[in-house]
């Protein structure tokens, strides 16, 4: 499970609207780093034990960008889970959709996800998806030690140390950022998959060019192995009440831009005299000495 996230570390003035809310459209969208680490771990498990790696993301059409990146990195297959009705989903509604999509895709032994995404830092979607799939979870995974006899042995972080746990498969693991180093794109795979398109990407092509028909396009891309499989609400036969804003119990009631109390500090000059007076003050307040 991977997620495209706004690059919250690089928020500039333009991104904040006058009313203090964030203009998401202005933020560059990036591959959530911990999810890339999770994909790397999945690829390593595949290389050691065989199998197939499927990348899944829920997001708007432009999230197909990171699915192409997954293909460049080595994923065998990619799924975009996208529908206007998914917009505004909190972690509960997101995990419902992901769970149903994963059930539909089927045939999994491992589900890997990053520990958390940088836009919310909640670390909730992984465990919530595991709960809905009714599979065990290993959160804060640091290392996969061994896979054997339908079991995985992994090292995970705990408060103040680590733990080695063994879980029966299938299992969902959330992965810490230092677990493994993601590999660079393979140039060969970039050449092979840069034209990969989701259903929405193709719909856009068809709209722009009246000579193209969506069914034919889809078929053609499938034949060439360049179709990013796309699942919508109808494909998954989802309960609309459990998706998007409707299915999200948490609501944003108020947003305030960060307003600072307003600089009422005493200015101390960077001189020995001034610092000496400050130290005297702190000593008389019994903070020092």
């Amino acid at each position, binding site marked *: 499970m991977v997620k495209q996230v706004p690059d*919250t*570390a690089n*928020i500039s003035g333009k*991104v904040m609207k006058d009313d203090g*809310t*964030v203009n998401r459209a202005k933020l560059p969208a990036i591959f959530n780093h911990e999810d890339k680490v999770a994909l790397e771990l999945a690829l390593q498990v595949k290389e050691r034990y065989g199998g197939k790696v499927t990348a899944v993301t829920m997001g708007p059409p432009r999230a197909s960008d990171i699915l192409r990146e997954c293909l460049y990195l080595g994923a065998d297959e990619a799924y975009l889970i996208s529908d206007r009705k998914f917009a505004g989903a*909190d*972690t*509960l509604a997101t995990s419902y959709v992901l769970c149903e999509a994963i059930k539909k895709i089927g045939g999994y032994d491992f589900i890997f996800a990053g520990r958390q995404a*940088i836009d*919310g*830092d*909640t670390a*909730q979607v992984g*465990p*919530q998806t*595991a*709960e*809905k799939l009714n599979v065990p*979870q*290993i*959160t*804060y995974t640091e290392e996969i030690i061994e896979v054997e006899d339908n079991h995985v*042995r992994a090292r995970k972080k*705990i*408060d*103040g*140390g680590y*733990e*080695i*746990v*063994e*879980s*029966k498969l299938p299992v969902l693991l959330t992965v810490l950022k230092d677990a493994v180093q993601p590999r660079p794109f393979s140039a060969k795979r970039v050449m092979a998959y840069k034209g990969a398109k989701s259903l929405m990407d193709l719909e856009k092509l068809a709209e722009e060019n009246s000579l193209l028909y969506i069914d034919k396009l889809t078929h053609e891309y499938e034949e060439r192995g360049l179709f990013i499989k796309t699942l919508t609400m109808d494909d998954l036969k989802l309960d609309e009440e459990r998706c998007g804003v409707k299915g999200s*119990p*948490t609501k944003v*009631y*108020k*947003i*305030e*831009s*960060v307003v*600072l109390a*307003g*600089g009422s*500090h*005493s*200015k*101390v*000059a*960077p001189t*020995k005299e*001034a*610092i000496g007076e*400050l*130290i005297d003050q*702190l000593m008389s307040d019994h*903070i*020092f*000495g």
Partner: protein
Amino acid sequence: MNFKNEVWVFIEQREGKPADVSFELLCKGQKLADAMKGKLKAIVIGSGVDNIAEQTFNYGADEAIVIDDPSLKHYETLRYSRILNDFVEKHVPRIVLFGATVIGRDLAPRVASHTKSGLTADCTDLQISDVTYLKQNHPDLLLQIRPAFGGNIIATIITPDVPTQMATVREGVMELQPLETPKEGKITKIEYKPNALDELVKIIEQHRESSKVNLKAAPVIVAGGYGLGTKENFRLVEELAHTIGAEVAGSRAAVDAGFVTPDRQVGQTGVTVRPKLYIAVGISGAIQHRAGMQESNKIIAINNDPEAPIFEVAHYGIVGDATEVIPAFIEVYKHKLK
């Protein structure tokens, strides 16, 4: 809907020792329960945890619900979440609070998913308030306040349409205030019923080192940030701390740059501290950092950028180069002690 307005706190224990954050949450939980005229209950799961259950009354619990069994000695996702799922479904508390620890962040989402409750991670404040949302009145709703979007905004989250509101809170964010007279609470023991599905995951071994660093208990802290530029410059922070008998801390950026170890990180994703004196050197003061130190009794900010947000929470501000200000500070301090 008519609610019992119960506030529950999951009491986390590691090797039989209760986590500070759980007692901090009881203190906050009592205020929330009082505001709704409801009861505060502590949920204690473990092996040989009667003593922990008793301690919860010092922090305001009206009742401790105890599930004690040898197989519950260590936290395990499946056992613990199954117990809580059943409880929450059966008793429908209005609020459930968890520490935002590795355990709390593993457990809370699992329980929230099962019970279809709202869950907000890493709240920096919790309040009870009547809320009008989409023209509907909701009495005594839990306001879940947290920084969002990389700390550029403060969001207030509500969960108006579900019976149970859940939140996680990091250690140190809520103040620990033991009661002068403990509550005369009651202990309710619940029998543990094993389930074969709990055996899907086994702990093979566990390693824990008690951290030698205790920032929370330090009366004076000197913290350095990325603005120091190099590890050598960060040494100045250590030297100043050594001179004045303080603990060394760092911002997340300083930790990421390798200037200081992660157990010394102050801020939203690190430790929250309230020392008598906090000296911030070369720390610009992003909200995530301020969230972890702004309750300090006195704050001195040293930064060469007069516009740095850290000055907004500081009591004393020194605009200048740390490589000059710190040696001067050390020299003057040593001189005054003579």
